[in-house]
């Protein structure tokens, strides 16, 4: 069985994928339904950042991007969507935290991790870059300075 897994992984890993977002509807902070597929229907670059209120590196990353987000938007029209994966225990802290920090992102709840699971995300933070509805870049983890690398990718791909 282990061999099968290994071979399976081998075959799969030899392809690269142009993945799309699953067709899911998530709620925003005000309780409105947001359809993911319609949300990314534009030529702009979208960044999806999977985070949680209890994840310190996630908050460090979103704080760091928040400081330069205005400049990013002016130059590239990029939009960052922050996917809060908090479950019921901490979900109620999402909204006051987002406002308290003054983040300007669109924040969506993924409280039973349907989107996280569909994209096979296991560790937070996890960042996706989308162009023309396709995922062109994925990244796990945050170290100070990663936001600069992210912006390089955004600039390269924006028109």
């Amino acid at each position, binding site marked *: 069985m282990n061999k099968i897994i290994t071979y399976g992984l081998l075959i799969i890993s030899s392809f690269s994928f142009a993945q799309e977002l699953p067709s899911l509807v998530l709620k925003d902070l005000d309780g409105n339904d947001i359809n993911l597929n319609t949300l990314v229907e534009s030529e702009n670059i979208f960044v999806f950042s999977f985070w949680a209120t209890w994840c310190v590196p996630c908050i460090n990353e979103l704080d760091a991007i928040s400081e330069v987000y205005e400049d990013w938007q002016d130059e590239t029209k990029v939009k960052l969507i922050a996917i809060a994966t908090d479950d019921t225990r901490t979900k109620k802290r999402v909204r006051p935290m987002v406002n*308290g920090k003054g983040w300007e992102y669109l924040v969506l709840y993924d409280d039973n991790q349907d989107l996280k699971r569909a994209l*096979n995300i296991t560790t937070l933070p996890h960042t996706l870059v989308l162009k023309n509805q396709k995922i062109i870049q994925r990244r796990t983890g945050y170290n*100070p300075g990663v936001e600069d690398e992210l912006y390089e990718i955004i600039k390269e791909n924006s028109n």
Partner: protein
Amino acid sequence: MRKITLFIVLIHFSFSIHGQTIDGLSVGFESNSTWYNDDKKTGDFADEANKDQDEHFRANNYLKIDYNFLSKLTASVQIESYEPFALLNYSTNFEGTNLGTYSLSYKTSNIDATIGHFYEQFGSGLILRNWEDRQLGINNALFGGKVSYRLLDVVGLTAVYGNHRVGFETSDGTIFGFNSEFELDSVFKWDEIALNIGFSYVGREDKIDLENPNYKPTTNAFSGRVDFNYRNFYSSVEYVTKSEDAIVQVNQVSNDFIKPGNGILFNTGYSKRGFGLDATFRRLENMSFYSNRKKSGNIFFENIINYTPGLTKQHDYLLTNIFVYQAQSAVSFLDPALLKAGEIGGQLDFFYNIKKETLLGGKYGTKMAFNAAYWSGLKGTFDYANQDYETEMFGFGSKYFSDVSLEIRKKWSPKWRSIFYYVNQYYNKKEIEGNFGAKPIVTNIGVIESTHKLGNGKSIRIEAQKLWSDSEKHDWIGGTFEFNLSSKISFYINDIYNNGDDSSTAKTHYYNAGGSYTKGATRVGLNYGRQRAGLVCVGGVCRFVPEATGLTATVTMAF
């Protein structure tokens, strides 16, 4: 396994340059393996659950593949391998290599139908939640069928039927449920107000092997809830009731102690830019709910139907997580001096951003977060001799836990930033853990964390922690040093040490050191260290784990 994994990583990178494209395929791989060693401080390696002392190397591997085809269909499989045994402290039902979950779903803009394994949550999960947590070894996916239907963003209806996944088997008990949600603001075309209401039903049928049972095989639970939003103000309330069922204590199902259960969850808050205030109240009475009665309260969370996490702040630092509250939703009449029927309490959160260029804000502003939580038992009359109780609706019984914390985040310069963290906790071990001899403990914990950017992606992060308590047993000190060599490579070392005379932890350095390499969505980590005995908590659910020492490798990949 590690060599194989490394090989796969290399192959992946070499092929992905010239690779083909397959649309609709998503793959995730996770491997957690440990080589446990004998340690003079934490003892020789022993796995009591599997009665094994020889297999020092353990690995849990997960491979999940989702394939979307014909635009509306998705097939998913998750293969899991626990060889030669699972990591320590996992249920022995996770054994060998096998198909963990598999499903086929059909999805359009308003219909979602799944057969096979699926994860569902009704409302806040107080009545039904299926989820996976690999770190804790939880997977209570339902195996059966699910249909959801949405009408014009106004009505959402879901029906589920199935049995719980338990290890690689399924539960004997059956779950069936129905959920409905209505967005009234869409109906009335309100712009500034959002008003959603929901109603759910969950039934559990678990056969009874008694001749004259005083309770029924099927237990019915109902939930009603309202969510309200007006500009910066929001509020929600949920009420759950569960029909009469036998009380289960230490796997013993009582035929004479039959009680209904209920739960109330209320939340309200106000927030605007730079300011957030949130308050939650919850009361739970006999809300333990399992697909197999006898498994009520099992430490592996197998067969669990509903989700009742401890509603306290999830702290981020080692010393702030020594005394962690776990929600007390079950009835427990183990001793006349320890009678419990549930819990009542709440928490308050306050977030504030002190503006730039003010006295306290400084050049970059200052971010503050305050949290206070208080939990106690239900007040009422408890009759141990006749195994019965009556509770007061809003009465507070003996205090179980309290927690007050303040976090201040301060950026000093483009290169320096710090976090100051203070926590005061009260932990009633006797009541929470059913530990008769234990006295309540009061702790004060202080943490200072600083990050310094060195340029070229290099940075260092330092943490200093201290725990003071009113007990001779606990007087902890701890620290962390982290060095990020680049955005891809980082190393860390941490240590906590108890200066008190607690027999199980005193005079032992619980140190850990390791490093990780990240490229894209692939992360490889290596860690050596000692695990402190205690609660490991993820998402408000905690499990007690004994001490262990070992070398751990983790690999996660997503394509």
